[in-house]
């Protein structure tokens, strides 16, 4: 009964803008790609996002932000993750992110940084290919151990 690793993604809208149509489109696309998407809704504080990611054991956090508050919020999220010892979660950003901020965002360890016009396929592939290897390694071990066990059972 070896299970494939089911990718769990937290989609959150930090900050005060209430425009979550983009986030919903992405959530839906990730669902259609077979992922389990925990959608938190709008007006999420960095604390709420990190706490939800921990409780849900998310493989990835996707933040969509249009308000321009990204340089206030993103560093906070990354600090909190570090404080909690979470180092194996992919953090991806999207929304309106000015080019001049991208180096700083990437320096925080936030990847992707998808702007308007990005196709949902691109985001799906990016998430799939950038899940932290330790999370997938766990699944691979699980798989081997499971087939080992069933073999034993068959004997």
């Amino acid at each position, binding site marked *: *009964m070896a*299970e494939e*690793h*089911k990718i*769990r993604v937290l989609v959150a809208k930090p900050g005060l803008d209430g425009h979550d149509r983009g986030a919903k489109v992405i*959530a*839906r696309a*990730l*669902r*259609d*790609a*077979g*992922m*389990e*998407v*925990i*959608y*938190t*809704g709008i*007006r*999420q*504080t960095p*604390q*709420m996002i990190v*706490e*939800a990611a*921990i*409780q*849900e*054991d998310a493989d990835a956090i996707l933040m969509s932000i249009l308000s321009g508050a990204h340089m206030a919020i993103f560093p906070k999220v990354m600090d909190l993750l570090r404080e*909690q*010892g*979470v180092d194996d979660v992919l953090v991806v950003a999207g929304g309106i992110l000015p080019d001049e901020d991208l180096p700083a965002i990437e320096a925080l360890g936030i990847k992707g940084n998808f702007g308007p016009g990005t196709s949902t396929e691109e985001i799906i592939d990016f998430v799939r290919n950038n899940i932290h290897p330790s999370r997938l390694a*766990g*699944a691979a071990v*699980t798989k081997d*151990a*499971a087939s080992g*066990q*069933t*073999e034993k*059972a*068959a004997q």
Partner: protein
Amino acid sequence: MSTDIVERVLSGDRRALARMVTLIENEAPEARDYLARLYPQSGRAQIVGFTGSPGAGKSTLVTQVVRELRRRDLRIGVVAVDPSSPFTGGAILGDRIRMQELAGDPQVFIRSMASRGSLGGLAASTRDVARALDAAGYDVVIIETVGAGQAEVEIVRAAHTVLVVTVPGMGDDIQALKAGILEIADIFVVNKADRPGADQTAAELRMLLSLAGKQPKSAEVWRVPILKTSATLGAGIPELVDALFRHRAFLSESGQLTQRNQRQVRSEVLALLQHTLGQRLRSAVAEDEWQRLIDEVVERRANPYSVAELLARRVGLGDSKEDAVSSREGATSAS
């Protein structure tokens, strides 16, 4: 800090608990051993199920109930189940949207689960996940089912107390609830009671319960309360929480808690056994042999019954009558 995940869960480490839930959900091979070790520490929490139609306000109601339970200084675990897509296996788990005001309370642990193909309103591993939360020390563990219609009654096998949430204006739909969900309610909640028709809905439920013989006068039998709430306004919530505790006390005092636990354990062991047998069978029969057997049955050279019998023998389950006879004979010859 201990590196053993079971120790960490028992000591209240939230990240370890979250990872444990993932292992349980994924049916990782080590998960059964972990669950076996957590089991002796479980059994203290009251497990409360919330079920009802989609849009009845379950998540909002759960949020309000958790707030009230927090006022009474209890630690709360929540497992919220939403459906997986039957086509892609993906899911959107949106219960957290309604539970935002609980975020940031370290005494509340919320986990969203996708149903992953199970049809009874829960995921296959929901009961085990609730057990992990129980063992981790949460006083009340709330399970919110997927939006349920008539037949999603799996929650009775997982919870001590089942709340069925309905809303005014469902009209004949309440009639439709008669056979399925009506029978599993320990507490009825008419939510959105600020809307017109709440009293009528409550009256209809009362009548249906009396028809079903569910409103006896005897103190030995639980009298299913029908409570009106408005989750968005926060009305009726303390009364609902009181009713939860009354039901818990009733179960203990009447001895029905033991009966309920025994029924649940029986069905759980049977389910585990079926699961194990299914696994053994899958590994004992290669796909080409399956195909050959299926072809034989389809072409009428064999029949489904004898093939099932053959496969049962393959996993070590011979004809039960023969076994019984031979074991009797063995006993006779030995004596």
